[in-house]
């Protein structure tokens, strides 16, 4: 897709830099015109908010509009010190990291195991049906998932709660119980992601040389042995890379999911950085303070993702850049 065959993009001797640039611009003007709207979009909706993090170093009034942002006094690192010294810092950081780690511990191996199991299914029709059904949760919204969780676990009317109540004679509650809430977060996360995440592993399995299995079969290896000694090592590079990037996103503990499911009764075990920013900023209208917490998260995330990428590259894998 290039026009290089028509004119050389090189600067001719004697041609001034300016006139060369102008010729280039005229030659490519259609393309520059075509990309301008999208570039404007990125400028306005991504770069202006990046500049907007300056409000984290100001005190802005929630009711002053744009003028309030400009007029707001500079306060340096006041909001950051307040956040780091508050009780909420430790609580929110702990919740974010613990929920993320729990989700990785249970959610990361699940699609690998699921893909390995699917790989044992020799009937194509069965395999296809199971796969299709397993993708279903990926396509529905967290709002709908919340509705499904309510159907199972609502305090009085939930199907599982009702069953447990009548079996044990006690009155069970899950969604408002700090002991159970994280279990609900982790299991609904696994439920929603396991099928879709297995796609990449199934593709990697499909890329394994079939001769390896034939040779193993001649040597008398069982299917379990093949899965363990051929399939698993065959996809180990994919596993390592995905794991590194999973850890790189450790501050993303599941904003929409938690925002929909939590309640004040379980804030202590479920309030993460994102939900804290949302409540402080958009509910309590402490824009500057919430922006400071958001900036803290953005910077740590940036460091983590750069670290993940360079680690992946050091292992000889293509990173994301």
């Amino acid at each position: 897709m290039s026009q290089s065959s028509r004119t050389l993009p090189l600067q001719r001797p004697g041609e001034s830099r300016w006139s060369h640039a102008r010729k280039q611009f005229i030659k490519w003007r259609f393309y520059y015109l075509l990309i301008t709207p999208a570039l404007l979009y990125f400028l306005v909706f991504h770069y202006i908010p990046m500049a907007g993090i300056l409000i984290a170093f100001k005190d802005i009034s929630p009711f002053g509009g744009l003028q309030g942002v400009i007029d707001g006094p500079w306060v340096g690192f006041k909001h950051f010190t307040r956040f780091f010294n508050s009780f909420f810092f430790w609580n929110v950081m702990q919740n974010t990291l613990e929920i993320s780690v729990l989700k990785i511990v249970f959610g990361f191996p699940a699609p690998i195991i699921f893909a390995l199991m699917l790989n044992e299914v020799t009937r194509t029709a069965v395999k296809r049906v199971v796969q299709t059904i397993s993708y279903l949760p990926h396509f529905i919204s967290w709002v709908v998932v919340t509705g499904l969780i309510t159907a199972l676990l609502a305090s009085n009317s939930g199907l599982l709660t009702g069953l447990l109540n009548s079996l044990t004679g006690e009155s069970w509650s899950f969604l408002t119980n700090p002991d159970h809430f994280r279990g609900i977060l982790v299991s609904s996360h696994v439920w929603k992601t396991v099928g879709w995440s297995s796609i990449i592993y199934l593709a990697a399995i499909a890329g394994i040389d079939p001769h390896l299995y034939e040779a193993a079969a001649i040597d008398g290896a069982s299917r379990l042995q093949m899965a363990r000694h051929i399939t698993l090592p065959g996809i180990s590079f994919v596993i390592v890379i995905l794991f590194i990037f999973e850890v790189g996103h450790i501050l993303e503990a599941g904003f929409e999911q938690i925002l929909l499911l939590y309640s004040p009764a379980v804030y202590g075990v479920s309030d993460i950085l994102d939900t804290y920013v949302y409540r402080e900023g958009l509910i309590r209208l402490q824009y500057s303070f919430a922006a400071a917490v958001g900036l803290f998260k953005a910077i740590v995330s940036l460091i983590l993702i750069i670290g993940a990428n360079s680690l992946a590259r050091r292992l000889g894998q293509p990173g994301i850049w």
Partner: protein
Amino acid sequence: MLSLSRNEKIFLGVVYVLLLGVTLAFLLPFIIVLSTSFISEAEFARRGGYVLFPEGIDFTAYDILFRRSRVILNAYGVTTFRVVVGTLFNLAFTVTMAYVLAQKNLPGRIPLTIFVFITMIFSGGLIPRFLLVDYLGLRNTLWSMIIPVLVNAWYMLIMRNFFMSLPEELSEAAIVDGATAPVILLRIVLPLSLPVIATIGLFYAVHHWNAWFDAAIYIDRSEMQPLQIILRGLLRSATLEGMEEISFMEKPPPAASLRSALIIVSTVPVLFIYPFIQRYFVKGIMIGGVKG
């Protein structure tokens, strides 16, 4: 196929049983809400909650959602608008940007790509984004659900990689024949790229169908709320805003069956479409997994 030993058979049996269990775990919640959407107040009172199988079929909940209340039909309209118009805008901006950035000799291609890439690893966060949408006057407009998410950088790069993989000879031959850049895009590149455009378009459409958080923070007016927000509201309280007529009914349906019916009507379009389009999605994931 080699004949299986006894241990192998046990192993396979265990795998099939586990997969059956997993499959049921995916389906059961949907079966429960489908069943519960059909139960009457009397049955709900007798059985005490959500049910796996209804004893009788009662359409009161659906009757309320579609006939007695205008809220749901209106929300369907809002959601349809954001899916159709939003996806078309997404595609127009994404395709043009990807096409331009796929030009290997375009002066400034690398800096422009980096300009986009930076937004994938760093963002100003929720508060500056919210304030920007507010100051631009987009709040309480349907555009607040479309314009702030015009281009997904990741999808754009997937599409760019696909464009770059098309054989260069095609456009070069067209240039020799006197085709101009717009003609090449419309007549050669786009027809060859329909599968990837369909895939990315479907990604965008599903996002628009399921999105709710942007509507929750940008839109206060109830007549502009999409389906997901109405569902969220009904899950939080037993009464549906704008559905006061329920309280005048002699035998109002239980909240559980209203909720279930709304879950069903806001899921059914996706349920019916995704099995047919999943192979495109899968392909899309694979294209995205290949770095270019």
